[in-house]
């Protein structure tokens, strides 16, 4: 199994990360937002010299380095002569450093990288590859690897058709935990891309999309189950698709990342599944989802036709197993879903 693991972005974090696990095949981090941003929040903005030092350190440890430049919107700057030259210059510098792979979302960058550089070209989840047709398109542009849109993580017919349609490598993001069919997905990633990219940066009041994302789950906890994460124990069900898995979590602590690496490397986790889910970390002290009680659910999802209002499996499962953290006279306790004021 090849595990791609998030890295917070500074050398100290990389040293901690790589000293904590022997199961890491590659680490990934954002580059400098001065050239191409990324579609997610970052804790760092490493300069080229810092990337070079960290890449050398990772290579010394036998670990590959991937840079994430997966902005989903650059406002057209990439198509201007100045923008194109700047981006090409940055690619050239990263290539010179010895970066193993670059993850991008814009088809233009896939083609630029494939044509002129030695680095592997990885198509981001933010290219939303969810069909064999789209996969073929990116492969023809030069993709070395496609990270499949997690929205189809539980649609095995789609996954198998993508596998059959292309010969490039495939990668699955296991713990993003975004809402299934999230209505905010495009707007949110576009916002992040501007906030974490070359200016002008929006001076926002609040992240509306994130607040809505959390409140939707608090009001309707079945969304926590429907979200297309992959349990560590279920990786074996995906082996006929790929043996390459990506763990999300660039803004988490190293300790959190290592806990997730350990869970997915060992294909086992005892405890709260929320501990492993990246995008909803702010809810991990609100909900308890006993991972062991999800055993076997994959069999239902394998034959799921995604007509939730007729099926109701995830809703029933949520009501059965999810607990809510609360406080009583003795301190922290857990109460069943429904007795804590939720609106399901």
């Amino acid at each position, binding site marked *: 199994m090849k595990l791609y693991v998030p890295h917070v972005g500074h050398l100290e*974090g990389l040293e*901690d990360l790589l000293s904590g696990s022997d199961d890491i095949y590659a680490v990934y981090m954002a580059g400098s937002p001065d050239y191409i941003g990324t579609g997610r929040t*970052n804790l*760092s903005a490493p300069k080229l010299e810092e990337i070079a030092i960290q890449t050398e350190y990772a290579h010394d440890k036998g670990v590959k380095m991937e840079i994430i430049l997966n902005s989903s919107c650059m406002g057209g700057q990439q198509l201007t002569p100045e923008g194109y030259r700047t981006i090409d210059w940055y690619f050239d510098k990263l290539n010179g450093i010895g970066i193993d792979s670059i993850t991008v979302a814009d088809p233009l960058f896939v083609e630029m990288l494939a044509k002129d550089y030695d680095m592997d070209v990885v198509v981001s989840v933010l290219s939303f590859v969810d069909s064999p047709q789209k996969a073929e398109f990116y492969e023809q542009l030069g993709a070395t690897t496609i990270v499949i849109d997690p929205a189809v993580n539980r649609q095995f017919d789609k996954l198998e058709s993508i596998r059959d349609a292309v010969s490039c490598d495939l990668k699955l993001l296991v713990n993003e935990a975004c809402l299934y069919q999230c209505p905010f997905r495009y707007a949110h990633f576009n916002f992040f891309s501007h906030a974490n990219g070359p200016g002008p940066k929006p001076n926002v009041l609040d992240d509306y999309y994130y607040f809505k994302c959390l409140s939707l789950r608090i009001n309707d906890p079945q969304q926590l189950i429907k979200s297309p994460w992959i349990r560590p124990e279920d990786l074996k069900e995906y082996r006929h698709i790929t043996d390459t898995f990506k763990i999300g979590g660039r803004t988490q602590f190293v300790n959190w990342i*290592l806990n997730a690496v350990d869970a997915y490397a060992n294909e086992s986790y005892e405890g709260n599944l929320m501990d492993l889910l990246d995008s909803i970390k702010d809810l991990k002290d609100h909900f308890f989802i006993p991972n062991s009680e999800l055993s076997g659910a994959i069999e239902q999802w394998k034959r799921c036709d995604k007509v939730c209002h007729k099926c109701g499996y995830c809703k029933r499962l949520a009501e059965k197993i999810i607990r809510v953290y609360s406080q009583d006279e003795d301190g922290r306790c857990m109460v069943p879903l429904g007795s804590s004021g939720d609106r399901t």
Partner: protein
Amino acid sequence: MTITQDMLKARGALENKLRELLGIPVFLIEMDAFALPCGCGGITINTRGLQLDDLEVFEEHILKYFTETVTSLEIDPSFLFVRLIPGTSEIASINARMLCSNCYMDFARGSGKRPRPDIYILRFDSRE
């Protein structure tokens, strides 16, 4: 005095000390007390005008002032840190956090001042 009266007094006193120390118009725009579901509690002071360079030069003094502020609010000063705006030298907040056992492990793992690129630790008392 009430909790908010104590906090109002503490905020203003710390702001004055920082301005006198650094000679620049540092603003402590908001002091918040927090209690998290995990069991952590403490205060966050949102700052404007404070830079990492200021901290690195005057760390000893700033740590002393902040420890006094925290102690005056009956908060254990065992974990004090600042949070940076990612990719910049701007300090977004100064924080005192009484860690729960789970969150303690997130910080106890590393040995340096920067467990994450956006965090600079002023004080961390290891537990037995």
